[in-house]
């Protein structure tokens, strides 16, 4: 990470400036490409925008140094500078996005590049141009040439990708505008053809209208032919000479290979006024400003394609020029009035969609997060919480308070309505008071039975105060409560600096309420297991909660590197942060690290593990992750001051000659679509020491957004890659289906048995699967999606794939050690299951089907990315691995099959198997815990013996030594069969192993698997 001192940075840039020209060529080309890709997605955007009343305002661009114009989230910043802003946009658009998993849609967000604004050569600060990204792009090219290499090339790159994103908004807006007028100019109709080809209902784009884009103004000028030469054929020159209006110049680039797209780009580029020549007619009328968009000439629509022609045909008669004004947006204009939508009923290309009711404007502040998470059933959540026996109470035993009646002893209570637990709250501080006298230890967990319902109570003690969390036992198990409590406490500590402070201070109530509502909702909500795709198993969810790690999505090396690069580039903070008003000031924040989530998966993290965990807990318990997983967000900005565990709550580890700087730390979460980017900022240290409670810095928000947008440019397409990885079937480990293995023992007469379990129940693809004969069916089906993708993908992908196909042989066919008694397992490190090769050859029926499926899989994998290949964890002919979970404590991550991979093998038996797997994992994880604690304990005891503290009364060795491996065999009997036919039962192991380095591996395998878990772990690690 580099901390540049500001003026040093400047010099740096000058040195590097020389390489700039070389770059600019490449960059402009890149822009070109970006634009085309963006245009392709324009219909989607148009629809996206169409339903959303606020889109145009998002297209508005914040002005110069961020203070003159505020972002949308700005009004929601809390008193103490904290912000919790979520805008999910329209539900339908989210659903739409969900359906369109293969094709990633782009976000309609514009952000004015600060640098551009700062550059006084280009932009007149009195005007803000909302609708046109091209303007900036053009100008910036123009401008760069002026500046002669004073701009850092990387910086320019960033800027461009942003500028091109701006243009999306412009384009969609503009097309909407054109359509609404029902004009049938050539450009518009060709556009509509394009869109209708994509089967998108296009009428939706109408609401975008030009309302927000400002007023139209029409002027009639007499062209002034005095200065016109014969060879003046360029429209720009003509315009300047005829009317005194200088248009932004657009540099024509050599056309790219697909000229259709570049034509399209030209056509959709706006014609913008750069200025007016003094003493011209235009200047005299005083109503044409820089930034206005030239729309029509003599009612003919103007575009860069026909600009020259139109101007050449101008005769000496009066010419009617129509301009469109940009709109200046200020914070109090957030909800502009909606105007009736103009539709052209006789336009064939646009089927009229059912009228969408106007969406009630949501308050995008943090409170509505509960609404969003619960699908708008906020009241239901409230009722659920009131009905359940759950509570959070912060009770004090201070003497002066206990004398009062009433609830003065309770500093904090959630939920606010009383239940049985609040009635008996006196119990909890008493227990906390009594128990230390017996055991020298504070209570951890109590179990109560209230009217037959078991409730677990978790405690946290501080001096005379007790924090109590009570949850019903049927939802939250004892050890889950324990880890929940410790996680929540850590989170509270991170957010409020101290736990007692957090609960004692009434100001925090709102925030804590939010936290607990979301957390309890997550824990207590009814299991919606009917929706396979989105909702995790309850047991799985709980397991993943208590496993101290973040779900990690394994991308290919290339893509991972790409993400790393983008984040590093951002972290380098090498953007032009120099406020021109105050030169040489220190920067406000230095970036300590960032991490990137896609849906609930961590893609890439540049944070220390402890910080990463803080961040993860924050996102997890505020349900942000589940939200971003469930739906696509328009915008999410969260800003909080935090007290990172690493800095504030850990005993400092003294390193000679180095001390971590003191300061303030802030967490900034910026989300867009399914991406979440998390930053930890530090003020103090290298950066300026901040006073008070500063609000979110718009600059960093903008830059983070820009980075997220950068991830979605054509070159990167990270969302597409992630989605592909999530939807792909062969990149992770192959999983076997329990149903097949069980059914395999059956006669195999049923026609559908090989098909049905394989077909993902919730997958959109299953519908298109043709019904084939048994064996063929699997094969075809496996390869079909790949083919489809191929045809749909761009040439770039084609290339990549063709390279990848070369290496289609599966790896991981490692021959393990021979299975002889005692040979592969020395010193207790081993662990395998059956040396008895189970003589179950009765399952001939399934063998062929499985073989075929694995063949199909291998093929599909070859076509996928280069790095990750087919992994079959178990040896032998058949794949016997049902499920796995790999936790790496040191990296703070875990890996599990993606839902697509699970869907592939899903079936009735497999469902139950997974449930059992996760429940057993919980138990196994619990029994691993003492092993981990044991190491800590010895350390603590060492320190204790030194400090001569009171040791526990009951101390002494635990009965069991630390467990390194635990396994359970489950037997699934088919209910439909006779109990006599016991050999037809499916038996599977759930095995967990703890490795000395803290990794944990859980696998679920068939009974007959001939390997030991160490070997599998090796394979799995090697594959990682």
């Amino acid at each position, binding site marked *: 990470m580099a901390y540049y001192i500001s003026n040093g940075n400047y010099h740096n840039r000058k040195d590097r400036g020389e390489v700039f020209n070389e770059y600019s060529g490449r960059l402009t080309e890149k822009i070109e490409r970006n634009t085309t890709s963006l245009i392709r997605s324009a219909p989607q955007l148009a629809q996206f925008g169409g339903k959303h009343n606020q889109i145009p305002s998002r297209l508005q661009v914040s002005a110069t140094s961020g203070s003159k114009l505020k972002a949308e989230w700005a009004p929601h910043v809390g008193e103490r500078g904290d912000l919790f802003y979520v805008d999910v946009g329209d539900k339908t658009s989210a659903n739409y996005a969900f359906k369109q998993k293969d094709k990633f849609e782009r976000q309609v967000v514009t952000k004015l590049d600060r640098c551009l604004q700062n550059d006084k050569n280009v932009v007149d600060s009195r005007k803000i141009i909302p609708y046109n990204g091209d303007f900036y792009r053009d100008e910036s090219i123009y401008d760069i040439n002026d500046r002669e290499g004073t701009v850092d090339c990387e910086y320019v790159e960033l800027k461009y990708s942003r500028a091109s994103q701006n243009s999306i908004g412009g384009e969609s807006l503009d097309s909407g505008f054109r359509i609404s007028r029902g004009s049938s100019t050539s450009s518009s109709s060709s556009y509509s053809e394009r869109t209708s080809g994509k089967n998108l209902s296009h009428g939706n784009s109408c609401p975008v209208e030009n309302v927000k884009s400002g007023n139209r103004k029409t002027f009639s000028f007499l062209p002034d032919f005095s200065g016109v030469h014969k060879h003046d054929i360029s429209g720009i020159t003509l315009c300047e000479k005829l009317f005194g209006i200088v248009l932004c110049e657009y540099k024509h680039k050599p056309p790219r290979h697909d000229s259709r797209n570049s034509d399209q780009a030209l056509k959709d580029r706006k014609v913008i006024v750069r200025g007016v020549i003094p003493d011209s007619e235009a200047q005299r009328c005083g109503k044409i400003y820089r930034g206005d968009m030239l729309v029509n000439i003599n009612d003919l629509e103007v575009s860069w394609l026909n600009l020259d022609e139109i101007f050449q045909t101008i005769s000496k008669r009066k010419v009617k020029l129509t301009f469109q004004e940009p709109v200046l947006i200020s914070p109090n204009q957030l909800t502009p009035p909606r105007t009736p939508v103009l539709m052209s009923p006789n336009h064939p290309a646009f089927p009229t969609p059912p009228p969408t009711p106007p969406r009630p404007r949501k308050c995008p502040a943090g409170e509505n997060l509960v609404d969003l998470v619960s699908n708008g059933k906020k009241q239901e959540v409230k009722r659920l919480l009131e009905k359940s026996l759950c509570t959070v109470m912060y009770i004090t035993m201070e003497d002066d308070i206990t004398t009062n009646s009433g609830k003065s002893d309770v500093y904090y209570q959630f939920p606010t309505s009383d239940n049985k637990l609040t009635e008996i709250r006196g119990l909890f501080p008493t227990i906390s008071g009594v128990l230390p006298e017996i055991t020298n*230890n504070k209570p951890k967990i*109590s179990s109560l*039975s209230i*009217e037959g319902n078991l409730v677990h109570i978790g405690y946290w003690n501080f001096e005379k105060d007790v924090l109590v969390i009570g949850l019903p036992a049927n939802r939250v198990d004892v050890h889950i409560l324990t880890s929940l409590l410790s996680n929540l406490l850590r989170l509270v500590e991170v957010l409020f600096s101290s736990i007692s402070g957090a609960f004692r201070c009434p100001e925090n109530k709102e925030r804590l309420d939010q936290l607990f509502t979301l957390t309890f909702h997550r824990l207590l909500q009814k299991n919606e297991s009917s929706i396979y795709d989105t909702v995790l198993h309850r047991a799985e969810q709980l397991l993943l909660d208590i496993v101290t790690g973040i779900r990690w999505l394994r991308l290919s090396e290339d893509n991972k590197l790409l993400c790393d690069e983008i984040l590093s580039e951002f972290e380098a903070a090498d953007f032009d942060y120099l406020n021109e008003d105050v030169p040489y000031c220190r920067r406000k924040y230095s970036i300590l690290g960032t991490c990137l989530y896609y849906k609930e998966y961590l893609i890439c993290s540049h944070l220390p593990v402890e910080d990463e965990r803080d961040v993860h807990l924050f996102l997890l318990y505020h349900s942000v992750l589940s939200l971003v997983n469930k739906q696509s967000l328009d915008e999410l900005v969260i800003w909080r001051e935090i007290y990172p565990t690493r800095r504030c709550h850990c005993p400092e580890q003294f390193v000679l000659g180095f001390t971590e700087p003191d300061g303030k730390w802030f967490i900034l979460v910026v989300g867009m679509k399914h991406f979440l980017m998390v930053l930890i900022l530090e003020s103090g240290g290298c950066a300026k020491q901040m006073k008070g409670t500063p609000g979110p810095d718009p600059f960093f928000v903008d830059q983070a957004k820009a980075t997220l947008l950068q991830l979605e440019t054509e070159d990167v397409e990270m969302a597409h890659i992630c989605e592909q990885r999530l939807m792909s079937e062969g990149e992770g480990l192959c999983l076997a289906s329990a149903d097949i293995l069980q059914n395999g023992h059956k006669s195999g007469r049923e026609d559908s048995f090989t098909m049905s379990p394989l077909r993902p129940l919730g997958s959109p693809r299953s519908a298109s699967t043709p019904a084939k004969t048994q064996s063929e069916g699997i094969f075809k089906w496996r390869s079909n999606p790949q083919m489809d993708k191929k045809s749909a993908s761009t040439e770039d992908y084609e290339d990549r794939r063709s390279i990848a196909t070369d290496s289609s042989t599966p790896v991981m066919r490692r021959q393990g050690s021979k299975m002889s008694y005692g040979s592969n397992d020395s010193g207790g490190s081993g662990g395998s299951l059956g040396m008895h090769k189970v003589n179950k050859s009765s399952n001939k029926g399934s063998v062929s089907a499985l073989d075929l499926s694995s063949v199909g899989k291998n093929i599909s994998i070859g076509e996928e990315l280069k790095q990750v290949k087919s992994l079959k964890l178990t040896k032998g002919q058949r794949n016997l691995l049902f499920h796995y979970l790999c936790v790496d404590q040191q990296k703070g991550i875990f890996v599990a099959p993606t839902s697509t991979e699970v869907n592939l093998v899903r079936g009735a038996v497999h469902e139950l198997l997974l449930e059992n797997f996760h429940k057993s994992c919980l*138990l196994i994880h619990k029994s691993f815990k003492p092993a981990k604690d044991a190491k800590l304990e010895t350390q603590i005891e060492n320190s204790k013996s030194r400090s001569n503290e009171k040791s526990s009364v009951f101390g002494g060795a635990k009965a069991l030594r630390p467990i390194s491996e635990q396994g359970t065999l489950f037997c699934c009997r088919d209910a439909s069969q006779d109990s006599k036919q016991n050999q037809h039962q499916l038996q599977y192991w759930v095995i967990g192993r703890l490795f000395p380095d803290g990794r944990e591996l859980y696998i679920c395998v068939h009974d007959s698997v001939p390997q030991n878990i160490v070997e599998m772990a090796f394979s799995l690690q090697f594959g990682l």
Partner: protein
Amino acid sequence: MAYYLLCLTTRGGVPLFTRTEGDLKPLPFPVIGSLNGIHMFASTHDVSLLSTSTDDSKIVWKVFHESITLILVSQEEECNDCHLNRMLETISSSLVLLCGVEEVQTIKNVERFKKELKVCYGLVDHLLQQTDKTMFCGVTGAVDVLAAPENALLQNFLDAFVEAADSPYGCLFVHGKTAVATKKWWNLTAVEQILLAALIKSSAVCSARDIPIFLPDGSPKVPHRLMSFQLMKNIIVCVICGPTPSLATLEPEVTRFWKSSYDSLKSLSQLHPRNFPNSITVDSNILGFLLVNTEINRCLSSIQPSSDLPGGEENLSITERSNVLCAFYKKTVGTFFSTSTEGSEKGPSEFSHKPMDTYITTDTYKCYAMQSESHQIYILFSVNIPTFAMRSVTNKTFKLLSKDKIIQI
């Protein structure tokens, strides 16, 4: 294991007795009062406080016969509640065994009842201590048996003796384990059998004794007489009878009936640490096993299955073996397996498929458990056994033991 056991009256909260096991300082009176007070406070609000755990201990509250509250403070914080509750149930039964259920239910005079309860101290302490490492009844709730080839022969001796004592209940204890018993005796509940064995074991060694007892499940109100006679060192025969015959009349009979069985008794006592016939050999990696029949609540255990006890660090001491097996049993039952113990079925019922086997490995030993319809076997292996071999060895051992004719459990 360290325990505090507190017994108080439920209505008044008067402490009846406190037993402390292990190296613990006695609890001061106010602490006892507040421990009970917490529970009472909750119950006045129709809430019953079941348990509370700290980092290193667990406290369980339970009310019996609506008159006495037992509070157990235990070291095993991770232990499933069902094991501690079972322990409390055994203890409360032991009070009934010696005092009768009427006394316990209606405490007329607290001071007098306190004095009456003093007779139970020995038995309660014995139940808490679990000093005999070869006994697993305290953990499993199943009767420890001894499977000897001589059992069939001795059965005849016992039947004859019981007839002479004019009682259907008769039993032969070897080191506290039931070797031979009459049919009626086997029909007693497991708790009764365990308590009777514990009572005899906890009492001082004497050649003959006559103790008035109530059978907690069979006849909690009508007292019987338990008469026991020492035949050899650690071999005791006992009968339960009514008012007759008196100890004096029966004592001379003992020699008459049992003299000829001397050789059999001797070999029986020599079998003790092994507990199962020498004719059966098990894998040398097995350090100990525990076979439980969950239907008839009997268990056979051995922590010295191989006659030679080889030295070396990887072989655990007898105490360690016993502790590990107990801990493994407690870990498994209530989570994966269920037994007749109340509350143990809760954990396993969470799984939709029946857990059949389970194992753990550590750096010094490995454990494997397997269950069938009626039996469960827990085996402690030395660390030398490969993990994959455990299943087949367990399977083989289980078949060997359960199919054997001598071992009738």
